[in-house]
């Protein structure tokens, strides 16, 4: 823990601090636009929920369960839970330059608090055809079609898809990102490119636990637990991972990148392509035995307004992660993963409905981690919400079914099914 804190402290906090210091030293700083601590620069959001579900122990407690809350085997378990509480601070330095700092408290079966995001945003006035914006710091890359707001809450349901649950867990780099938006007649194009670091272990959870469905996110300096590993694998991997980590000494020795192209058609349809490559070196390891995971993936997203308040959202993600030195031409881990979902939402006045189906799998062909770690399954979700001013009530029914041979080592059936009913009350101040 201290190791990771040291790494992040010297690796990412200092560059951000230097950027802020440089900003303060800029003579052109427009004092009249300075707004650091007014009430408008703060936002508090949070939710409490009732959770009723069956099935296996949650991954949050080191189990194989894919949901945020554990079931009780065949018996239904009912429990009140604190969801996510976020304090968002968005100080304004000049009209074009601001910062977003999000502190989060996540409740449920493992309570933890920490830093969710911390980045600078630069958004100068656009020209008639082009708009440029930039961000720098610890932040979510623009992948999810399900999240919104500075607190990165799930818009139409309580639980995001497997794709965007994973983004919240293992895809949160320290990055410098630039975005150019162009209006070409009735078309609109947005291109984003970023260089990034502090994401060398991305892919660990996806390999040893598999896909999951939950609205927890990894906080800076924090670890995520892994399910039981067999003896041979446990020699190479501790029962945890720090998703926000540069494995080699120093900061950004092998910076990665991500890029995105979004195209808004003349019709109410938007398509997005996203590419990520952390460029981590698979043979790197630190003194806690955490390895570099070379993770690459492509995500395709589409959002279409079908009229009368109905919107279709879909994402498909496919990628590969490799960890460890090569033996006989194969890395210790060589995991190809993919997932896809389609969701329909319908809004009428203060009400909203959402339905989502998805399928996912992983395929392991490493020299150490083989097909017993493969993970495949599907899930279906329906949700309803109603808004009363600053309060939003949500009800969600979710079912997930998955197969994973490595569960047998812990005396579990490879195929597990979980059904969960949740009612959440979200507040926003």
């Amino acid at each position, binding site marked *: 823990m201290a190791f990771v804190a040291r790494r992040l402290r010297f690796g990412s906090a200092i560059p951000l601090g230097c950027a802020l210091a440089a900003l303060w030293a800029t003579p052109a700083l427009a004092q009249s636009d300075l707004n650091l601590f007014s009430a*408008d620069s703060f936002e508090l959001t949070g939710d409490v929920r009732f959770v009723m579900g069956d099935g296996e122990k949650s991954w949050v407690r080191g189990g194989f369960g894919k949901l945020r809350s554990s079931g009780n085997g065949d018996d239904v378990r009912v429990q009140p839970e604190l969801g996510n509480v976020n304090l968002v601070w968005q100080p304004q330095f000049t009209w074009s330059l601001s910062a977003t700092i999000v502190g989060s408290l996540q409740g449920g079966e493992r309570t933890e608090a920490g830093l969710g995001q911390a980045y600078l945003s630069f958004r100068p006035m656009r020209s008639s055809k082009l708009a440029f914006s930039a961000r720098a710091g610890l932040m979510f890359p623009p992948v999810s079609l399900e999240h919104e707001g500075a607190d990165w809450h799930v818009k139409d349901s309580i639980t995001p898809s497997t794709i965007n649950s994973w983004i919240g867990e293992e895809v949160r780099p320290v990055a410098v990102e630039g975005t150019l938006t162009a209006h070409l007649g009735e078309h609109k194009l947005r291109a984003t490119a970023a260089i990034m670091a502090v994401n060398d272990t991305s892919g660990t959870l996806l390999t040893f636990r598999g896909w999951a469905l939950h609205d927890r996110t990894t906080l800076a300096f924090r670890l995520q637990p892994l399910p039981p590993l067999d003896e041979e694998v446990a020699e190479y991997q501790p029962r945890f991972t720090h998703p926000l980590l540069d494995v080699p000494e120093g900061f950004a020795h092998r910076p990665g990148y991500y890029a995105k192209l979004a195209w808004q058609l003349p019709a109410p349809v938007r398509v997005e392509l996203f590419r990520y490559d952390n460029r981590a070196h698979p043979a790197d390891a630190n003194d806690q035995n955490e390895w570099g995971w070379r993770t690459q993936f492509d995500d395709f997203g589409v959002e279409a307004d079908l009229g009368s308040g109905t919107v279709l959202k879909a994402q498909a993600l496919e990628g590969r992660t490799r960890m460890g030195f090569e033996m006989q031409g194969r890395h210790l881990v060589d995991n190809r993963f993919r997932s896809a979902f389609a969701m329909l939402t319908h809004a009428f006045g203060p009400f909203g409905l959402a339905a989502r189906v998805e399928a996912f799998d992983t395929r392991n062909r490493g020299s150490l981690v083989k097909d017993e770690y493969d993970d495949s399954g599907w899930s279906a979700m329906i949700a309803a919400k109603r808004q009363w001013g600053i309060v939003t009530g949500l009800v969600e029914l979710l079912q997930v079914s998955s197969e994973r041979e490595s569960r047998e080592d812990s005396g579990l059936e490879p195929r597990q099914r979980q059904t969960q009913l949740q009612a959440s009350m979200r507040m926003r101040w």
Partner: protein
Amino acid sequence: MVRNILIALALAGAASPLAAAPLSVRVVDASGRPVRDAVVTFNPATGARAPRPGGHFTVSQRDLQFHPFLTIVPVGADVSFPNLDPTKHHVYSFSAAKRFELKLFAKDQSRTVHFDKPGVVALGCNIHDGMSAFIYVTDSAWTVRTNAQGIAAFADAPNAPGRVIVWHPYMRVPGGTMQQAVTPGQRAASFSIRLRAPPTMTMTDY
């Protein structure tokens, strides 16, 4: 004395062509469905009557949208832009009829812009890409928008030859407007216009 003047004015009015039946213009889309919020202007060949100049109008920002979406104002109008959202907005226009930008800090701040040239002013927000609205600045007293039935009615349009011009924010046509000649005695006109889908989807803002 006043009574005599009023009677004289009433008689003069009864004798003028303004007393004709209303001019009614219907706008439908390619499928024959009525189009609301199309802006229809009647320009008589004898010259348009200038609207009452100036006036004060409001386009507010609420729930990350402009309200109303379409506003018709006369040349010389002042339009206020109150920010009713708890977040800041950066309202701008690059339109030839009026170029401006307004920095509106959070809640209850307002700025006013004077519109001194006729034309269409497209509004946007530099921070929130999904915000869009239009101000139609007119130099004619006979400019109205279509209602939910796609009807624009000119109660006092003269019974004279002229042209009817239709504009809509999402109309697909070269030049952005459609025109039709009106002959004396003609009190109805109809337009079938092609519309592109409104850009309701916005790029995700992070």
